[in-house]
Every structure is written in structure tokens, then in C-alpha cells.
């Protein structure tokens, strides 16, 4: 700020860095990210509890007691992106804790285990276990399926999904065109 500048009533203070002449403005910046960000590992811890307000002779007093730890990691290996997301869940209200990966039941819930790669520029291929996509009614569920995404010419995005059910005889496919410009 020049010394002869008049400051009017109500005028805001100049922010740090503008108090000086332009040449001395600092480009120094503090690092904002906590350790671990972009190192590949992320996760959260979630605890929920619920109690019944009325007595039910056929039910436990607790309606919910879920403890969930979700860990996820992404690794880039020579243009091959590996995604792994796993939930560790414990709910004392449940009586069964055996693991059924296919149904997502038990104390280990494997949400994503897949690889993503682009064999050609206009195509992504994702193979493995992943979240079902939004255009399937069962959004939010996981399943083992291959998925091909293509972008070409005037068609912005075409996704071909091959959901594989319990039996390979139930094999079916879905083609989704996301928009034509």
C-alpha cells in the first residue's frame, strides 16, 4: 500500500500479500494435504447404534449396532489401474457373521476388486467386482462383471455391461448410449 493512499470508512483491509508492491508478492504456499492423501490408501470408520423404544418379546432391545471400517486403495501399474475397496463390518445385533462374498454378507464385504485399462484410446475395459452401474435398477449392489466403455466420434459414451448372475446361463448384456452430440 502506498503511504499516501487514503482509507475510507468501511473499506476492507488489504489481504496478506497485497500489502506490498507487486514484485514482492509471495508465491510460497503451505501444503494443505494431510499425510496419506494420494498415497493410495483411504478409508473411514463408521459406528451406528439403535435402541427400540418399545418392548418387543421377539426382538432384541438393540435394533442396530453396526461398526464399519472401509479401506480403499488404487494403484497405477503401467497404465493398469487396480481398484480395491473392502468393508469390515461387525453388527452384534446380527446372529450370523459368516462371510458370503457374493451376497455381501458377513464381516468382510468386498465391494470392489477390479482392474481398469484402455487397450485403445477410445475404449476402457473394467474387469472384476464392482458397483453395479446407475442404469441398472440394482444400483448400489456389487457384482462380478466385465464392462466396456467406448467413446468415439459424435457418440459421447457407450457402455456395454455384461452382468453375470449366479449362473452363467443367465448371462445377459446391456448397452447404454449416454449422449450423442
Amino acid at each position, binding site marked *: 500500500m502506498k503511504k499516501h493512499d487514503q482509507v475510507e470508512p468501511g473499506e476492507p483491509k488489504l489481504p496478506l500479500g*497485497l500489502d506490498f508492491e507487486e514484485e514482492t508478492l509471495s508465491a510460497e504456499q503451505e501444503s494443505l494435504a494431510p499425510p496419506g492423501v494420494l498415497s493410495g490408501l483411504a478409508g473411514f470408520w463408521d459406528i451406528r447404534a439403535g435402541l427400540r423404544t418399545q418392548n418387543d418379546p421377539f426382538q432384541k432391545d438393540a435394533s442396530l449396532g453396526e461398526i464399519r471400517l*472401509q479401506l480403499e486403495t488404487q494403484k497405477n501399474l503401467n497404465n493398469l489401474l487396480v481398484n480395491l475397496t473392502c468393508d469390515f463390518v461387525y453388527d452384534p445385533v446380527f446372529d450370523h457373521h459368516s462371510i458370503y462374498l457374493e451376497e455381501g454378507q458377513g464381516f468382510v464385504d468386498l465391494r470392489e476388486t477390479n482392474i481398469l485399462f484402455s487397450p485403445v484410446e477410445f475404449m476402457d475395459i473394467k474387469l472384476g467386482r464392482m458397483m453395479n452401474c*446407475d442404469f441398472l435398477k440394482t444400483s448400489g449392489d456389487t457384482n462380478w462383471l466385465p464392462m466396456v466403455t467406448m467413446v468415439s466420434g459424435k457418440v459421447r459414451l457407450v457402455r456395454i455391461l455384461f452382468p453375470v448372475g449366479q449362473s452363467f446361463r443367465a448371462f445377459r448384456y446391456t448397452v447404454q448410449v449416454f449422449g450423442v452430440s
Partner: protein
Amino acid sequence: MVGSKLIKKSMAGTIVLASILFFARNLLAADLSVNAIVEKTNHVAYYQGHDGRARVSMTITDNQGRKRHRLFVILRRDKEGNGSKLEGVNQKDGEQKYYVYFLRPADVNKMVFMVWKHLDTDDDRWLYLPALDLVKRISATDKRTSFAGSDFFYEDVSGRNINADEHQLLKVTDRFYVLKNIPKDPETVEFSYFTMWIHKKTFLPIKTVFYDKQGKEQRIYEDLQVGMIQGFPTVIKARMKNVKTGSETLMKYDRVEYNLNFPADIFSERFLRRAPRKYLR
């Protein structure tokens, strides 16, 4: 006598005409300079370099002092426009694309907010929710609602269309231009007008105050720290206070870089599900 009366009359006429011309020219000059100030401010706030990246840390403090944090990376890419609609201004700031990739909190890690900012039509906005692998289109009418639970609105992040407001130059001080901006379509916004204190040397908007329909202060934005990065004056710390709710949001920027030459296709639905990690580091 008659001759002198005629001379007096013609002199008076000349003075009146000269005065009208003088004031008209001043009015015109003032009007042009308002447009130029608005354009330059918009350019400095949202269009420096042809693209850019910043990592942003957000701390939201509510009226009881409770804090929440957000960490995300913003990518921006500009397309040259056809020039301004404002008279007397030759700025070619055009359409823009924004890609906002969330890193923290961990339960929204990999969430993406994408905007295609248009000048003549409503912006296109998408939200990608990784926990559901769901791409959601956000209504253009939501642009004046909270961004990521903070006191900033979606429109504060991607910029308000300068053609949406009437601009008046309230005063010029030694250090600031003070503008009053009145929405042309008041039904579409929650404020009645907002004032901006614009630094004369850098054209950075240092303080912005939004006023409600009763003329009371509603939200106050202030720059707290500025740095010079690659020759561009850049805000690296800013705060938005919501006077009505008593909460405030502090935004800090690091890893700011301009002119990285992002490819156009990373601002697409395909790259919502498959984040362009190379450019987010």
C-alpha cells in the same frame, strides 16, 4: 442592443450545449469503465491462464464452533469466447469446464463435481457418487445452493455470469473500485444485490457483500491472502461468512499452477468414473 442580445443568447446556448456534451461524455466514459472493470475482475477471478489447477482445503465452522473439513482438487479449462456482450469491452472470456475431485473426507473420496459453464444457456452440472457408481445431473436451478455443505454456493465456485446483473460504479477510492450489482432477474436469486470492492491494481475482488431482500447483509466474502503465481495474482486464502446462520468457511489453496494444457476429453462423463489421476497430483 439587438446584436448584443443575440450574442448573449448564442453564448448561453453554446455553454448549455458544451455542458450537455461534457456531462454526456463523462456519463459515457463512466459507463464504459464500469463494463471494463466488471470484465477485468471476472477475468482475474476466473479466467487467468488458459487452464489451471489448485488443491483446495475447506474448513467449515458452524455457529457453535464445530468444524468440518473438505479437501479437493479443482481443474479448469477455458475455451476462447466470441468477445463480451458488454459495450466497450474486448475480453474474449468464453465457456469453461470445471472438474472438482474430492479427496477428503474419506467417505466422499473420489466424488467428482463437474461443470460446463455456458454464457448464453444454463450451465451443465454433474455429480459422480463413487459409493453408488452413480452419475447424477444437477439441476441448473441448484446453482445458488451450498457447495459441499459450505457457505460458498456452486455459483461462487464456477463464477456468476456477468450478463445476469446490472452493474453500477458506486465510488472509486485510492485503492478500490466499488461496484453494486443488481440481478436482472431477481426471482432466480436469494439476494437483492451485492457489492464488490475491487483492487484497482490487480482487479482482484477483495470483498463481496450479498444483501437480502430487506437490504441486510447476508453473506460476506473476503480475500485473506494473495500470492503471485506464474505472473498471475492469485487468491490463496479466502473466507465466506454467512451472517444469517453464523457459520463461516475458510478456503485455502495450494499447488496452484496455470497453463498445464489439459486435454479436452478429461472434462467428460467418461472421466468422472475414471479420474485423470495424472492431472490431479
